[in-house]
């Protein structure tokens, strides 16, 4: 309850901040929130949805095309990274991989003291992933598998074009399934096995199709970090340049095929799925479904795929509605490609909400385990202050706000008519409002251990 209230206060604060420029009565609203004892869930969720709807309306006030172009075209810098930086990245990646393999095999078996588990989940999947969307994508330089693949010979088999990005979609869904149902976050030996298997497949793929093709088209992690890097302020364009966060998602040629749209929708869905399976509702539903005779092993993959199909369906519907509302002769596929990248901002916001607290709480444990991987001292966990839930919630909402803005800018770029551009966003905004409410609901739920996993 207190957590929910905290979140609601933050949501109201954001709503006030969003609407204050239009009607300067913010004090009255936040005063109302301060008096609150407990905000009912429905109101908390509606407030979040209201923030998204209100920010869409606010964005629609910006109708000056040259202003949007200026904001999105703003760049600074052009620093060429020293050769040493590249070598440093490779050294960090290879060193990290070696540490994971060694500490995973010979380190302590408890997950919270094992340097391999902490490096992969706290250091890499939480902390490092945040840098890819908050700072810039350094993964091509760090990725140890890419470094190892570079000197290998290649058979240069032609990659079948019809496969497109579909293998990376399947691999992403597969990895998330593995993360949810397997002890990959609890048993260091198992983690080493997964990392090794991933490496073997990656190196084999790089040898068969060529490293460049493999990491550009198939490798799901490289693709994920590349896409996240598009929203980061630092990017590489003949030197490292600075831009405003999110504007890179507006590039017309960022997504060029249906498979790449599917990948972005998958990114969005898996971040949600991860949280969904840790809610009491999922627990109850899973117990009921298995009680009705469904094998537990089928439960998670079926829910993962069915949920993914549902999210794809909602996106396709939103795009179709967008085409109708804009009365455009552009095919729905073109619109789907153009309006997909903003969804990455939502996924990143959700990742931040999900993992920032986890990262900060376990960062001290990671540090101590990294210093003495074989016999780490008892882990010290950081205790986060009560207002921290507000920061997590702000992550969800800021991701959506960025998505609204980028989609607005993209619509202005695509459509000749200003109101046509605004109308084209109605369906997508409604979908985002629903998605925000679902996300906030998950964030507000108490943690429940997912059932039927090892």
């Amino acid at each position: 309850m207190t957590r929910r209230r905290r979140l609601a206060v933050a949501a109201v604060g954001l709503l006030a901040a969003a609407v204050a420029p239009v009607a300067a009565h913010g004090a009255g609203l936040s005063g109302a929130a301060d008096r609150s004892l407990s905000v009912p869930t429905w109101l908390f969720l509606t407030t979040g949805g209201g923030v998204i709807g209100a920010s869409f309306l606010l964005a629609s006030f910006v109708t000056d095309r040259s202003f949007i172009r200026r904001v999105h075209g703003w760049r600074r810098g052009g620093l060429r990274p020293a050769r040493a930086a590249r070598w440093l990245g490779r050294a960090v990646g290879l060193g990290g991989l070696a540490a994971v393999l060694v500490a995973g095999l010979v380190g302590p078996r408890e997950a919270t003291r094992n340097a391999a588990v902490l490096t992969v989940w706290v250091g890499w999947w939480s902390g490092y992933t945040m840098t890819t969307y908050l700072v810039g994508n350094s993964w091509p330089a760090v990725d140890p598998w890419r470094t190892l693949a570079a000197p290998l010979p290649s058979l240069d088999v032609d990659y079948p074009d019809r496969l497109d990005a579909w293998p990376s979609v399947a691999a992403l869904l597969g990895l998330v399934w593995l993360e949810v149902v397997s002890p990959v976050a609890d048993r260091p030996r198992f983690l080493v096995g997964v990392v090794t298997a991933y490496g073997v497949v990656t190196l084999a793929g790089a040898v068969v199709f060529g490293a460049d093709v493999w990491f550009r088209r198939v490798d799901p992690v490289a693709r994920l970090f590349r896409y996240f890097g598009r929203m980061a302020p630092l990017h590489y364009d003949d030197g490292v340049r600075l831009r405003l966060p999110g504007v890179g998602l507006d590039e017309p040629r960022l997504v060029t095929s249906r498979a790449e749209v599917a990948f972005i929708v998958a990114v969005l869905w898996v971040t949600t799925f991860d949280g969904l399976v840790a809610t009491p509702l999922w627990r109850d539903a899973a117990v009921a479904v298995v009680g009705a005779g469904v094998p537990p092993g089928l439960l998670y993959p079926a829910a993962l795929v069915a949920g993914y199909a549902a999210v794809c369906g909602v996106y396709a519907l939103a795009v179709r509605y967008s085409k109708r509302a804009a009365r455009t002769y552009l095919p729905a596929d073109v619109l789907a490609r153009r309006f997909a990248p903003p969804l990455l901002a939502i996924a990143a916001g959700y990742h931040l909400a999900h993992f920032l607290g986890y990262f900060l709480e376990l960062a001290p444990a990671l540090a101590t385990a990294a210093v003495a991987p074989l016999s780490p001292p008892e882990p010290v966990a950081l205790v986060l202050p009560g207002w921290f839930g507000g920061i997590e919630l702000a992550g969800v909402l800021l991701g959506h706000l960025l998505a609204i803005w980028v989609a607005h800018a993209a619509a202005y770029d695509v459509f000749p008519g200003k109101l046509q551009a605004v109308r084209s966003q109605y369906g997508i905004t409604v979908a985002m409002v629903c998605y925000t409410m679902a996300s906030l609901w998950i964030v507000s739920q108490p943690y429940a251990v997912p059932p039927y996993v090892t």
Partner: protein
Amino acid sequence: MSGERASAGDRTTAPTGERAAPPPNPPEEPAVCGHCGDRFADDRLLALHRGRAHREALTDAEIEAYREARTEERDDVRLFRVKALGLLLLIYFGFIYVYAFVL
């Protein structure tokens, strides 16, 4: 031709032939751009498209149509802003009211 336009930094229009899928609520007769063949639901969108995508190649009549379309659009945008502002205020005070009522 489409490559030329793209490299000239104009990101407005899709390549020729891309605007060829009629919307579910199509007009009786689409407005077709004489410069690139793209299709639009009405003459005003076509005029706006021509003004943004083919600025250098416009005839006097097309320039005049572009100007007219922009004026009309400005009026519509103004009306839309009034409506959007009203809706924002409705959302804002709606929430204040609900919060005051619930808490």
